[in-house]
């Protein structure tokens, strides 16, 4: 089928595309959130270690 | 020194809890007053037309009873936790699951039973026909029991947490939703004139499940919170 038929999805486009876009966005978001959690943890740990060093 | 047996220890704890509860009479009456007020709100907000009320009566009755019983759940362990009695109970050497069962049963007697006793009155105010009255009573009896036994788990987990009452509702309500579904359905079917036997039996099964397994989870949650 051609490209416009593909986007039209037999009339269900208004439901189908939001569903796919939603799921893919959630997947991308979770990757980003996990990586950010990791970076934050590293930063906080580095800060904590630095404070302990300067204190001792 | 004579060791206290299971039954004796249970009876002691149960009667102590009842005595304490009746000393603070407001704690017993508050949920009932809340129940009466909430159920009054609906005819005022929706419509006093009896035919319409009858359609939603089952749901209103059950949700109001659930929320009222939830109100009282906070106090299940709190005063004992604050004055150190709970610690003594955990250390007492009696099986903690048994003590949890007894405490939850005492809570049910003190907060659930008054709701059940008030329910026929409330049901009449919501235009529930007399053929459904027994279903109302039985379903709420089982439902408030389920809430006490399942709610005790949540109460144990949220001990001493600031603003724990909101968290408690958040934790306990999902667990009680199946009971709500079948309880309200039973009352609804009785109102329509069908036999509520199916949902009531399921509700009874949930009750037995929560009473038998709940105390073990409650004991685990108490041990976690008191470590």
């Amino acid at each position, binding site marked *: 089928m051609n490209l416009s038929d593909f986007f039209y999805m*037999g009339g269900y486009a208004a439901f*189908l595309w939001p569903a796919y876009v*939603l799921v893919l966005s959630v997947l991308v978001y979770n*990757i980003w959130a996990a990586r950010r*959690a*990791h970076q934050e943890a590293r930063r906080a740990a580095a800060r904590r270690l630095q404070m302990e060093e300067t204190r001792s | 020194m004579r060791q206290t047996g299971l039954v004796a220890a249970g009876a002691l704890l149960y009667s102590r809890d009842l005595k304490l509860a009746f000393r603070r009479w407001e704690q017993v009456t508050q949920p009932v007053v809340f129940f009466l007020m909430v159920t009054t709100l609906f005819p005022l907000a929706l419509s006093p037309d009896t035919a319409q009320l009858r359609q939603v009566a089952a749901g209103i009755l059950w949700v109001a009873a659930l929320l009222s019983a939830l109100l009282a759940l906070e106090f299940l362990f709190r005063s004992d936790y604050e004055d150190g009695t709970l610690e003594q109970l955990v250390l007492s050497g009696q099986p903690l699951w048994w003590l949890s069962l007894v405490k939850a049963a005492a809570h049910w007697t003190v907060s659930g039973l008054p709701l059940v006793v008030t329910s026929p009155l409330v049901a009449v105010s919501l235009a529930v026909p007399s053929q459904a009255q027994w279903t109302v009573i039985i379903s709420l009896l089982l439902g408030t029991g389920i809430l006490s036994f399942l709610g005790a788990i949540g109460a144990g987990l949220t001990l001493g947490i600031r603003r724990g009452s909101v968290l408690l509702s*958040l*934790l306990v309500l*999902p*667990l009680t939703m199946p009971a709500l579904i079948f309880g309200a359905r039973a009352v609804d079917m009785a109102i329509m004139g069908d036999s509520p036997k199916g949902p009531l039996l399921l509700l009874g099964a949930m009750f037995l499940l929560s009473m038998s397994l709940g105390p073990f989870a409650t004991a685990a949650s108490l041990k976690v919170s008191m470590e």
Partner: protein
Amino acid sequence: MWKWFHMLASPPHFYRIAGITIPWFAWPALVLILFGLWGGLVKAPMDYQQGEGFRIFYVHVPSAIMSMFIYSTMAIAAGIGLIWRMKLAHAVAAASAPIGAWFTFCALATGSLWGKPMWGTWWVWDARLTSELILLFLYLGYIALRSSIDDPQRADRASAVLALVGVINLPIIHYSVVWWNSLHQGSTMFNPGAMSIEMKWPALAMLFGFMLYYGAVLFVRLRAEVIRRERNAAWLREELAR
């Protein structure tokens, strides 16, 4: 074997091993998901009853299966952490919760978007939808409980108890379509005769892609958890200096 197991559970080792493993989950996940997307949107034939609208199946069903799979993983990890007092097990449970909650949300939202054109309604209170919604509440309650307890040990153990109590919801969700005949259709993925393989394979590709994806994201979050929980400065200092 136990030596390997103990090594895995030791934080510095786990941190390093996880770091190496993540790409091995992530890239295959991407390939499988793209393959599944192509299969579901392009290659698979349209359903004779539902037409092109059927294609939502390929995101809805894998999400729903993941929502339950992750909860059971979370509950098992919580149980292991509770019984054997393994910090890493508690970390797995904590890290899995947000991922599982998002998959549950996806299952509910895509189900809604599928339901409206097909069955004429955004929502219906049948057993499967209701118990999936309860699953979302259980996830949220778990996350809320964790964040309201300050002491990390108590937070671990209390949320573990909660996760285990909620497990009873899983068989209800799964068997609800067997026990009650209402709007949600019966089991397709686990029922051998229900769907032809030429329509089923994109869903399987998506499902395995999602599972590898879960592994990758879980390990990233686990690395964060390990750092957060680790008090021993020596290996941390070394690691952070890299």
